[in-house]
């Protein structure tokens, strides 16, 4: 066994060897801030490796890119609503009255060298930041990485996603062009829909009536100081908890709930993660160079009486806009108070609902399953069919809302009238998630059964054999011990049952309603799962495999690669 085993904190005993050029500066620093104790533990910290662990990294790196490019932009951007006559080099608006904010954005695009590049890098990085956070969240959800002890980090992550959405919206409102003004107009309408205090909120936020003079400077300070400050603090905390709780890993040979198998931070992950930062940065810069994003000079200065047809928000706001589009016109006036449910429910309450459900999910799952143990091994989505099905239902609903946000684009491109599209979406938004839930759950259970089959009987070879007495059977290729272990390394779940209605002494202990609900939910959660094969099942499968062992193929040394035309396992 050539693998080196190092346990936490047991570094090799120091010898009298000299430590090279790092010793001097290290001593200088340590004499003052004494970091060696921390450094010896963390320097060679082990991180597991999997492509899906890089999604969160992309989000982190885009945030760094946003900070760098944002500082550059802030040197020239001027968040002022003072009107001026544009005299820059973009001919179309020369002589036109516009806000200083819009004029300085045009100057950044045409006058400042590299300014357009930085603007586009900043916008692409924001798009990527939100996308990476969302996909990272889905990865964490579908693999159960939010389970104890990582619920706190799940909640921090949700806060980051919400703040990211607000930050992104604030950012593309700053140029004060026609498109961003249209977005703000809608945001103002959303504020007004808040029952009782809506008008006041709108007047306080905008410093009076929309659009006013105050909003752009106010949202600027939120965009460049307040929200990034909170984001930075939360990201730091997110990373510290990641280091403290150590990263989750996929189960596999030698990978257990009690260890982490992977490569050390120094040097492998410093090089890999550091290199990946440059890759993300490089790709973002190339996008800024090659793909135009938010050409504000095309839209012109904001004018509340104008709009560009086919106005679309940035992608991460699309689902909210879609919800506004398909909502029926529910508005009531009760006791003199007008309740605009057609705006409040999709525009304000929906976001609360989404993040409320996501935030509660780990705790609901924990309560239903009664599982209070710490989990460091990830689950394959198929091995948690109910969770995966919930996730699929959520993605379906989100996707439909997102499609709703583009109903006019779909109507013009597919030549369907948008009345039909909108009416269909109003029904689909309720029906499709349920269908997605059922279908996904069945697919997961099917995949669980396939995994069990593979463990019990090996891979299908697709070759039919006829025995001497004329019976047909398919040849199977046994799986390697490593693969069989990996396929069965997950746990069998518990199903909560009701306790006996009489305790040991025969005293009646009637079930409470909560107990009954929980037992039912627990059955709903787990009872349909195909459990992994038991020891007995595997023994039985092996024993009747011996009857016709002649038809069994040799176990493949490495991962099964399919079979060649002779029916033999393919090798490299």
């Amino acid at each position, binding site marked *: 066994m050539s693998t080196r085993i190092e346990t936490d904190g047991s570094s090799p005993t120091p010898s009298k060897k000299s430590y090279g050029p790092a010793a001097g500066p290290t001593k200088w620093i340590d004499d003052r801030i004494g970091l060696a104790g921390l450094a010896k533990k963390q320097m060679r910290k082990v991180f597991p490796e999997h492509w899906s662990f890089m999604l969160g990294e992309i989000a982190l790196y885009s945030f760094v890119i946003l900070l760098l490019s944002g500082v550059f932009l802030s040197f020239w951007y001027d968040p002022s609503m003072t009107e001026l006559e544009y005299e820059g080099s973009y001919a179309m608006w020369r002589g036109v009255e516009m806000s200083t904010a819009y004029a300085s954005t045009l100057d950044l695009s045409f006058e400042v060298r590299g300014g357009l590049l930085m603007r586009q890098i900043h916008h692409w990085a924001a798009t990527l930041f939100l996308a990476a956070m969302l996909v990272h969240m889905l990865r964490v959800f579908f693999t159960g990485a939010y389970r104890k002890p990582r619920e706190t980090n799940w909640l921090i992550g949700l806060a980051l996603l919400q703040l990211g959405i607000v930050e992104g919206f604030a950012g593309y409102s700053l140029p004060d062009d026609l498109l961003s003004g249209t977005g703000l107009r809608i945001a103002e309408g959303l504020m007004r829909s808040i029952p009782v205090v809506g008008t*006041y909120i709108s007047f306080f936020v905008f410093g*009076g009536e929309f659009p006013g003079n105050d909003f752009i400077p106010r949202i600027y300070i939120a965009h460049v100081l307040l929200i990034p400050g909170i984001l930075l603090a939360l990201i730091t905390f997110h990373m510290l908890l990641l280091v403290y709780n150590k990263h989750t890993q996929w189960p596999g040979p030698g990978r257990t709930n009690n260890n982490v198998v992977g*490569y050390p931070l120094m040097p492998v992950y410093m090089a890999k993660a550091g290199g990946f930062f440059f890759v993300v940065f*490089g790709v973002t810069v190339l996008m800024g160079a090659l793909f135009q994003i938010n050409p504000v000079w095309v839209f012109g200065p904001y004018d509340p009486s104008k709009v560009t047809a086919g106005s679309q928000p940035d992608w991460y706001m699309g689902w909210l806009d879609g919800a506004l589009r398909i909502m029926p016109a529910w508005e009531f006036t009760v006791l003199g108070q007008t309740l605009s449910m057609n705006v409040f429910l999709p525009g304000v309450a929906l976001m609360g609902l989404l993040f409320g459900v996501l935030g509660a999910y780990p705790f609901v799952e924990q309560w239903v399953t*009664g599982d209070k143990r710490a989990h460091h091994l990830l689950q394959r989505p198929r091995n948690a069919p109910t969770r995966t099905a919930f996730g699929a239902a959520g993605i379906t609903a989100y996707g439909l809302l997102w499609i709703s946000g583009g109903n006019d684009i779909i109507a013009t491109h597919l030549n369907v009238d948008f009345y039909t599209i909108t009416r269909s979406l109003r029904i689909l938004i309720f029906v499709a998630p349920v269908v997605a839930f059922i279908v996904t759950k069945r697919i997961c259970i099917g995949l669980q059964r396939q995994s069990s089959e593979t463990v019990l009987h090996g891979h299908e070879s697709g070759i039919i054999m006829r025995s001497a007495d004329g019976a047909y059977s*398919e040849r199977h290729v046994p799986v390697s011990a*490593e693969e069989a272990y990996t396929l*069965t390394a997950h746990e069998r779940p518990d199903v909560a049952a009701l306790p006996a209605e009489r305790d040991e002494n025969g005293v009646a202990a009637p079930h409470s309603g909560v107990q009954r609900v929980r037992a039912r939910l627990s059955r709903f959660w787990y009872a349909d799962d195909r459990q992994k094969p038991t020891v007995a099942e595997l023994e039985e499968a092996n024993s009747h495999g011996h009857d016709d062992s002649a038809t069994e193929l040799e176990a493949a040394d490495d991962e099964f690669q399919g079979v060649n035309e002779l029916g033999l396992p393919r090798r490299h």
Partner: protein
Amino acid sequence: MTTHGSHPAGSEGDEHDGRDSTANVPAKPRHTGERVVLRTGGDPVADPGLGEHEPRPTDVDPAAEKRAERQISLLFATSALLTLAFCVAYFAIPRDAVLFGTSALNLALGVSLGLALLLIGIGAIQWAKTLMDDHEMVEMRHGSASSEEDKAEALAAFEQGAEESGFGRRSMLRGTLLTSLGVLGLPAVVLMADLGPLPGNAPRTTVWAKGVRVVNDITGEPLRPDAIQLGQLVNGQPGVFYEIAEGEEHPEYEGTELLNAKAKASVVVVRMLPDEITNAGSAAKGVDGILCFSKICPHLGCPISLWEQQTKNLICPCHQSTFDLADGGRVVFGPAKRAVPQLELGLDDGGYLIAMSDFTEPVGPSFPEMYQD
């Protein structure tokens, strides 16, 4: 026999309803009072342990190792050259130069810097993958919780501190302190009051009033009924936005004030055959089939600008609320609840279209006090 469906045990059981799935587990499920433990089948396969380390070509072949080192160095060196190229491009390429229909400067700066960064990244990753030690390491986890002793000591320290402070005992001190800290929240709220004026009647009123001329929003020219063709839609504004009073150099409304006023006062003027107007009350507010409606959507305030001449429908481009202008601006589709408000038109002495009053319904998105006096 290893064909599907031919083995007796296992797969039959799970055809049934899930409640029977425990039947697959030969060992009897254990009831532990609150839970049925299904974890009784055992782990069928033992952990084979970490596999052997497989050497890479660069581990065993010094030539491959040298080659990898040279390749990665080339990536880094190229990156440095590209960064220098970025600096040259910054000074060498004029701002207005065009290449492939786009800014040549943007293209040159972005491509050189992007590739320079990308090559550093690829080089570092390649270094890690080919040349750095790739033996997997195992680190043991520790529980996230502190040790029991630490917890006990922390709690004891907290309790001792709390005891010594007398916070629990001295209820008057505690009460007054908490009160004084609590009311500190008030200034935080009160100080926000000057963020904006109170709404008052502002959301209900616009600059329209009796006698204000309806003008074309591009030219600022007042509109005569005969200048509007049948089926045509004209974007209108109140004339006060364009008229310059005697002795003044600029119109009364400028800059932000103008935008604020426009956000409520923008209108559309349409002309239909009087027979086409199905709503008599609405027709009465017009002049010869010329009707004037607010351009601001009563849903979320977007300018409603898509005019379907045949159906007399006006569609909002933001959320597709559709209003029938032949029927008093009634909502025929979409999330808007209220009809788009109509402005009563008249003619002044010069024969130009004027408003007969302000809007009688609130313009723009709904708000809670909308129907209060």
